[in-house]
């Protein structure tokens, strides 16, 4: 089992979610986050005063999946979230030690 953590542009959440549904991904956790990468921040102007805003809003998607599904999920996220411009985000993949469904106590892949 692996955990896929993708940081994407907020407006790409909807197409990514739909495409993941289409390949039968069962669940995900979504968080609104802020940060910066190579894109750096943006400038905002209020009443003529310019401010450098370093942290940009992004969306973080977390999905835990069986090993054989991981490649598909990553490909789907890239396909949907990519604009080709700087700021599209990143995907991180981690091994998962254990998964437990709280309601039934099931563990391992059947709990994913």
């Amino acid at each position, binding site marked *: 089992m692996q955990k896929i953590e993708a940081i994407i542009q907020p407006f790409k959440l909807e197409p990514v979610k739909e495409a993941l549904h289409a390949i039968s991904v069962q669940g995900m956790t979504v968080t609104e986050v802020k940060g910066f990468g190579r894109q750096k921040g943006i400038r905002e102007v*209020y*009443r*003529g005063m310019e401010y450098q805003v370093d942290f940009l809003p992004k969306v973080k998607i977390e999905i835990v999946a069986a090993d054989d599904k991981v490649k598909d999920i990553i490909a789907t996220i890239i396909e949907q979230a990519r604009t080709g411009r700087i700021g599209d985000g990143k995907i991180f993949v981690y091994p998962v030690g254990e998964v437990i469904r709280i309601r039934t106590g099931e563990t391992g892949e059947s709990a994913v």
Partner: protein
Amino acid sequence: MMNQADTAFVLVSAALVMLMTPGLALFYGGMVRSKNVLATLMENFILLGVMGLLWALWGYSLAFGPDLGHFIGNLDYLGLRGVGAEPFKTYSETIPHQTFMIYQAMFAIITPALITGAFAERLKFSTFLVFMILWATLVYCPVAHWVWGDGGWLKGLGALDFAGGTVVHINAGIAALAAALVVGPRRGYGAEPMIPHNLGLTVLGAGLLWFGWFGFNAGSALAAGALASSAFTATHLATCAATLAWVATEWIVRGKPTTLGAASGAVAGLVAVTPAAGFVGPMSAILIGLGAGVLCYLVVLAKPKLGYDDSLDVVGVHGVGGLWGALATGLFASKLVNPAGADGLFFGNPSLLFTQVIAVAATLAYSFVLSYLLFKILDATMGLRVTPEEEMAGLDLSEHQEAGYNL
């Protein structure tokens, strides 16, 4: 002769002006950081209570009571004694004295509220309350008496101020400058971003101000008739023009038309047309609005170079807008619009402009000196600012033990 239409009109106008204070609270509340939103709303909303009572207990008497030395009203109307159904003929023969009083009460509420934008995000609430009570008593009431009160010295000179350009906006605008100078900038001002946290509130607030301002300006005719209609029209047209002028100027200067610019331009236009509303025609009103939009934007743009932290631009919008409006009244006023007024420079009478300059200068000087002294005295006695830790945590938590947004 009492007139029911006039009475109804002025009472409704009073209710409209009352709504301006919550409108102003939203206008300001959207521009501060989220940790100070409630404190900013509170500094405005609480004045409905404080100034409302102050006005009934002694404020009205000091402003509109029988004249003492052309400077202030006496104490005859203390606690609204004798302020009842009988018209106060000096101001209006067709509405009850009490109607006039409660209409004026709403002006006494919004004027001090305007100043709160200058010291937003850092003033102690207790000091704020004491300052406002003293300022209303020692600054607002006398200046209102000078300009509007029977026997007031500026009224005697023939200075024109239809709905409060001098009494309300210049008065509050220059007090705001004193506040910004004595209170000092917000911690981190200029170094860290201090970004408006919710401009939606600000735009809604500007809309409520625009709406309420019809009561402020048209209501100042104190009668439901042609003069009210003329003031209403002038108010609207000047505001339309100022909204467009501010946005157009920033579009040219900075490349983008902003929402905050549209909201700010509207308020600048409302401020500028306030003294002129009942004395100028529709085309003059448009010129006044255009001037306000451009001028106020340029002053706000120059603020960072001037070094003081007038956080929400009370000086730039109300001070400068009020100044322009008062002087523009001396340019554009016409007896064809209001026979009880006077002709301005463009209608063949240069002396009115001179009188307006005196009224403006006197208000600027008096209000600035007293406001400055009040803040200095309070600084030495109660202390003006919250502690650095409290300021970092935000006033919502440190002064009111609340949070604006619980998610």
